[in-house]
């Protein structure tokens, strides 16, 4: 069966975990991985798995993109270089799935708005943050039942699962998530709180979602919607589980989740990283299905016009 060929930019933990997931996909086929360090373990591992690699970044792959038929690229590098990566690949008609906080394309949370993004044939989607991927489906599960004036999410992640990049830029992480809770989740306003816990053995990712509804919450409808949404997320993150709730206290709805990773390359407690790579894979698979069925055609974005 024909698959959509993919490239991964960034051979770190996220990139490698993505590679494992793509290897299993019925729709996607990883063919390239690029980095900037010739000594990179991730590149060596990918090469062993039969993937073409370059230590010269995206530029090392560009001359081969068309002949190798790369149609989707995942960027797991940093916000600082994403715009350039995206411009270069968009010009060759490659769709970008952005796992950095750059967010130059629309924010994507698969069970909430992926269909709509596909219908718009966008050429760059951003995967928000791990906290956003874990919590926004729940905000949406409430807001699709009735108006949510305010949503607040608390994401707790294991210290070992949070790298130096996020730590240095925790303010962007917090603000990007808050904005997405509102924009994608569908709340009137949003707030995100991030806690990093160093316990040993490391704690599983925990997420709490509070929604304040405008009117008295319809407990039955919200509970049903929450369970349905959890099933949707479980399609790509099987360890996405409701621990407690939803509870109702006046107009406040509380939902308590745990996110266990698949443990492909990353440890299982790092559900926060797994949900990013799983959501990115899911997104690419949905686009890929459309491409294979001929319902979507990737168009090169002319020089100077790409984001």
């Amino acid at each position, binding site marked *: 069966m024909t698959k959509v060929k993919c490239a991964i930019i960034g051979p770190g933990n996220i990139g490698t975990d993505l590679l494992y997931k793509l290897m299993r996909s019925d729709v996607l086929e990883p063919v390239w991985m690029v980095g900037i360090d010739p000594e990179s373990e991730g590149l060596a591992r990918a090469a062993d798995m039969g993937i073409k690699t370059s230590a010269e970044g995206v530029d090392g792959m560009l001359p081969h993109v068309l002949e190798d038929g790369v149609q989707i690229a995942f960027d797991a590098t940093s916000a600082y270089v994403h715009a350039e990566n995206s411009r270069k690949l968009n010009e060759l008609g490659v769709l970008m799935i952005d796992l950095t906080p750059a967010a130059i394309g629309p924010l994507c949370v698969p069970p909430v708005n992926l269909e709509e993004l596909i219908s718009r044939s966008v050429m760059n989607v951003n995967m928000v943050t791990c906290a956003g991927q874990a919590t926004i489906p729940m905000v949406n599960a409430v807001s699709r039942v009735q108006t949510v004036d305010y949503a*607040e999410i*608390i994401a*707790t992640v294991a210290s070992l699962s949070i790298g130096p990049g996020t730590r240095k830029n925790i303010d962007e992480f*917090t*603000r990007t998530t808050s904005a997405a809770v509102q924009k994608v989740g569908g709340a009137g306003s949003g707030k995100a709180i991030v806690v990093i*816990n160093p316990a040993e053995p490391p704690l599983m990712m925990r997420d709490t979602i*509070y929604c304040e509804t405008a009117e008295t919450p319809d407990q039955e409808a919200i509970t049903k919607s929450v369970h349905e949404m959890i099933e949707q997320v479980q399609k790509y993150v099987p360890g996405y589980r409701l621990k*407690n709730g939803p*509870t109702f206290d006046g107009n406040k709805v509380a939902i308590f989740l745990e996110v266990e990773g698949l443990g492909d390359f990353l440890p299982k407690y790092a559900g926060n990283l797994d949900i990013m790579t799983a959501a990115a894979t899911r997104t690419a698979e949905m686009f890929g299905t459309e491409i294979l069925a001929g319902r979507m055609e990737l168009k090169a974005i002319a020089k100077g016009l790409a984001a």
Partner: protein
Amino acid sequence: MTQTMESQIKGKRVKLHDMCLRDGMHSMRHQIPVEKMVEIASGLDAAGVPLIQVTHGDGLGGSSLNYGRGMHSDEEYLRAVVPVVKNAKVSVLHVPGIGTLDELRMAADCGAGCVHVATHCTEADVAEQHVGLGRELGLDTVGFLMMAHMTPVDALVEQALLMESYGAQTVYCVDSAGYMLPDEVTARIGSMREALQDETEIGFHGHHNLGMGVANSLAAIASGATRIDGSAAGFGAGAGNTPLEVFAAVLDRMGVDTGVDTFALMDVAEDSVLPMMSKPPRADRDSLTLGYAGVYSTFLYPAKDCERKYGVPARDILVELGRKRMIGGQEDMIEDTALTMAKDRGLMGHNSKGDKALA
């Protein structure tokens, strides 16, 4: 040769930092009226307290469903308090992950002169942006390492050095759980003093859950701390902070120079702060449990709420939170833990009063 405590601290100069309008916000469930804040801050200022902290209990941006909404916004409090304070500096608490840089800019714009940038004791590296901005804004910038009992002394020192490297002018050892005993304070503060540059000040922030606020603060001064947090009438999370008027009186007798008028401070505590609560913070069995089990002090009232709601004793919930090594900021896990415990104990779920005999 045995040294007396007095011989170790006599003649030192120490800055007292009042917390009743920030940590005390926990006692008041963040519901201190603006005019009351103004009254207390003016009183503290007149008593010569050099630093007065004013923020939601969980710092800038803390007003939330998770931590409780403030009666007023941080900005409303700061705009009201800063202009009435003549000599003292108004400080704010800022926890990366809760508050954002915009909120710190707002506080500086309101005239705050000092910021405590707080992280868990092992996670100083999330504070780089915030400490950096504090310095850029010209604030007296403090790195505030919370729950410091949870990490070994050497590891705490490494984190203190990180805070210093980001630009923190003062680094605190924070006993958020009120768990430490004086020797533990001595070990931490002493090692920090040895490792940090001479010009970096060291501070100690205590909680009174084991009644050790005053003793621990003395130990901190003896081993090199020059800033001590306390709170008029002891208002603060758990059994409260080191009662500042008591500590000032002790320091007077021991010949430590604080510049504070002890009688005036007693009057603020007695006449302005204390009347706010019918049951002021004390080491009841739940607060005592915080200190005994090493649990974050602000978990106290939400745990009591869950006891009422789900029938699981607050003490049991707090012990379980300690066992799960929950840290500051994880207030959401109190209800989650209570719900799980209520289910496990067959107390049913929502709104069950339950049968406490089962617990």
